């Protein structure tokens, strides 16, 4: 028994089966990420002023990762085109390039960017104590310049034990530039190249703090969305890389020798998925890094 139109196209639709399948799968993926993005919009619209973090991610690294994904998308097209021209060696190199790009992306994302957030600390100050920390928050200055209110003091936590130990009464934080120089116009807006944490250390009493966490999903709905969406996106990148590795290994060379068009179709389908994953990132990047 043979299923028709697995490799050749059906005359009246002009398609082979897997091409229909992958487009439908991508439609479903649009709805999956659509659900998550609409949750992001819903939550962000609802967020009271000053509670939605901005400019906390490293934009140059994100830009670099964006370009890595775009390059990999170009390479997978070249890989597919090489197969269509029956140039297996070129295909092999382009495919290797695509796989490496995917891995580099994942390493940067999960191995560098995520840990940057784990070590960052933020403490939301109770409304009644905001005045006490005015020197770090500069709310009067912010109101004057029509900036959103500042409710949180962020930086690197020096006494990590304070998070767990109830006997320690205060957090020692090496302040971010915003909290170190709150009235400096330089820090009104996030910078493309992030300003490093300053040497200025603030002591924040625990009883003035509403909630204090590292930059983890528990920190805010912003970081919850960020880790959920980039995590799911990372899982998609990983899935794509695994498929590409399969298509690149010798096992696929045997398919090339027996039915090169079939391998080309597989690469096309996997490539469509890869472009989609790339496209999702094109939405993730501005939503979380820039806006």
């Amino acid at each position, binding site marked *: 028994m043979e*299923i028709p139109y697995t490799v050749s196209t059906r005359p009246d639709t002009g398609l082979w*089966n897997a091409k229909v399948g992958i487009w439908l799968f991508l439609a479903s993926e649009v709805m*999956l990420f659509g659900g998550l993005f609409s*949750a992001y919009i819903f*939550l962000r619209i609802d967020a009271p002023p000053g509670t939605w973090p901005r400019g906390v991610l490293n934009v140059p690294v994100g830009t670099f990762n964006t370009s890595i994904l775009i390059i990999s998308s170009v390479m997978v097209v070249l890989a597919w085109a090489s197969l269509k021209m029956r140039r297996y060696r070129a295909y092999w190199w382009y495919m290797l390039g695509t796989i490496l790009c995917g891995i580099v992306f994942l390493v940067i994302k999960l191995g560098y960017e995520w840990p940057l957030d784990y070590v960052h600390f933020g403490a939301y100050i109770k409304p009644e104590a905001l005045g006490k920390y005015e020197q770090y928050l500069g709310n009067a200055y912010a109101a004057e310049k029509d900036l959103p209110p500042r409710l949180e003091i962020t930086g690197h936590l020096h006494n990590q034990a304070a998070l767990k130990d109830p006997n320690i009464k205060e957090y020692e934080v090496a302040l971010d530039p915003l909290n170190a120089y709150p009235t400096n116009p330089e820090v009104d807006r996030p910078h493309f190249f992030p300003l490093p944490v300053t040497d200025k250390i603030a002591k924040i009493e625990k009883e003035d703090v509403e909630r204090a966490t590292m930059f983890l*999903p528990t920190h805010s*709905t912003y970081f*919850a969305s960020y*880790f959920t969406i980039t995590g799911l996106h990372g899982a998609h990148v990983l899935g794509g890389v695994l498929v590409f590795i399969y298509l690149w290994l010798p096992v696929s060379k045997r398919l090339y020798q027996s039915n090169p068009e079939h391998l080309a179709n597989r690469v096309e389908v996997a490539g469509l998925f890869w472009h989609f994953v790339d496209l999702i990132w094109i939405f993730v990047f501005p939503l979380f890094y820039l806006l």
Partner: protein
Amino acid sequence: MDSSASVDTHHEPHAHDAAHEHHELGFWRKYIFSTDHKVIGIQYLISGLIFLFFGFCLMMLMRWQLAYPGHELPVIGKWLPHIFGPESMPDGKMTPNFYNSLGAMHGTIMIFLGVVPIAFAAFGNFVVPLQIGAPDMAFPKVNMASYWAFFIGGSIMLISFFVPGGAAKGGWTSYTPLAAFDDTGPGRLVVFNGQTLWLIAFIFLITSSLLGAINFIPTIIQLRAKGLTWMRLPVFVWTEFVTAFLLLLAFPPLEAAIIMQLMDRVAHTSFFLPAGLVLNGAPVSISGGGSPLLWQHLFWFLGHPEVYVLVLPAFGIVAEILANNSRKPLWGYKAHVFAVLTIGFLSFIVWAHHMWLTGMGSGVSAFFQTTTILISVPSVIILSAFFISLWGGSIRFTVPMLFTIAFLPMFGIGGLTGIPLAFNSADLYLHDTYYVIAHFHYLVAPGTIFAIFGGIYYWFPKATGRKMNDFWGRVHFWPTLICMNAIFLPMFLQGMAGMHRRWYDGGQGWNVANDHTIWGLTGFEWNKPISWAAWIMGLAQIPFIINFFWSIKHGKKVNDNPWEATTLEWTAPSPPPHGNFVHTPVAYRGPYEYSLPGRDRDFTMQNEPVEPAERTRRKPPAESVLV
């Protein structure tokens, strides 16, 4: 063209050649990890029926608590704590937590593990490739993966009964913030607790239906037999096609929501949790900023299309059986097709009518009231066309036809009683009462499940080569029909009297359920006859179960087309071999050419070539029969 080849419905010697590669497969590949659409269809059917019965048993337990609250359950009451744990029914008396588990799991199991796997996946897998003349589904391995994802999801759902605290208790809708904190705290495990397992099981179930949907649609687009144009497809194929789109596009937003609720439970995020929540008297340490309403939107974005996932395949099954047993073309084929497509589209923009009570605002409500009323138009078109199809037919009251005919008024009652719920003002009163329970059960229980029964009796000969017993089929049908109505009709009364659907004591402790009588009984007292009807209906399923398994080996042997039907599945041998058809079928005509004038038989199969005399008629006779 050789007409004898195409009408051939008998086994031929080389039919066994077609099944040749079949022989090389061992037991495990042939029956368990099979990629054959027919085996997968039957796997779905049997697992689905088991889940359906299990879900029904949960409800029968609940009916005891509703009718005799606080009484010891006789006979099996002593045994249940040994199965479901000491917290479930100490001394045979049901605890509130166990009652909540049963309610949540009844809904979940019936919908996602019972009806959808049977109506969409089982019948779809078995029938669709045969009806479109294809050798198998477009992606057989994906098909197998779909079943096994379903199997894992179902198993996790069952396992959740046996973890500390028992299965999920937050209702099948798992509304937050309740569901975000259910089954947490002392004595509960982090992952192995009811609600978290519910969420994890759902990820598998959604994966399963996604894999099913991306298989059905390419199969129908790509693998239709030669000559089987879109307007020659049987209505069942159309309904499966639209249903697949609903699953494809409506389930992923729920998956997004489930991932977020999982994050809320495991990683302590606040997607669905506002600030300032107090749990057991202590403020909850979360960031807040989330929205419970967001969960409801994402849930019902699936939830409403899901209703049509349950209903559309039932329409398709009914169309097949109705045309076959009234020996008359289905009235208004094109109207059917466009009505099904319209339902598919509209079902995506009605979801918020489940949320009138949240106070979304009058603008939003007005929009969703309008779309909700709009969607009743195509539903009425379909149901009317079914009734008109009966007009002037020579009806054969076979067992599948009995279930089909019963489907029509039952579904009608369910549909019409939904209209008051579509209006904001009426729903504010009826929301969360037994009226709602009665309304949607009329659609799904005597509606879809009757279609499922009809479909099982109807296609059983194709799957096994034998018919199910007719007499015991009738013994199954009549008590089921009577009990269904005895269960759900009084619920309309209870609901209109204001009885809430989630009362653990059946209303015993509430004035509104005891102060007035309706037809001689108070709202609370009505629980007793309803419960007895439910238990009798449980007994009425025994003839079906025995009939089903007995007939596989001992049923009456029949030929390949015992119902004298017209669609392509009846041209294949019964049971069809691996690869299905002896000769690749070619379709020459529409799906329901019954009682064509000038023929010696009252059915003309789709693969019978059009005769020259027929060509001269400008209008197909099929559409002029009624006039």
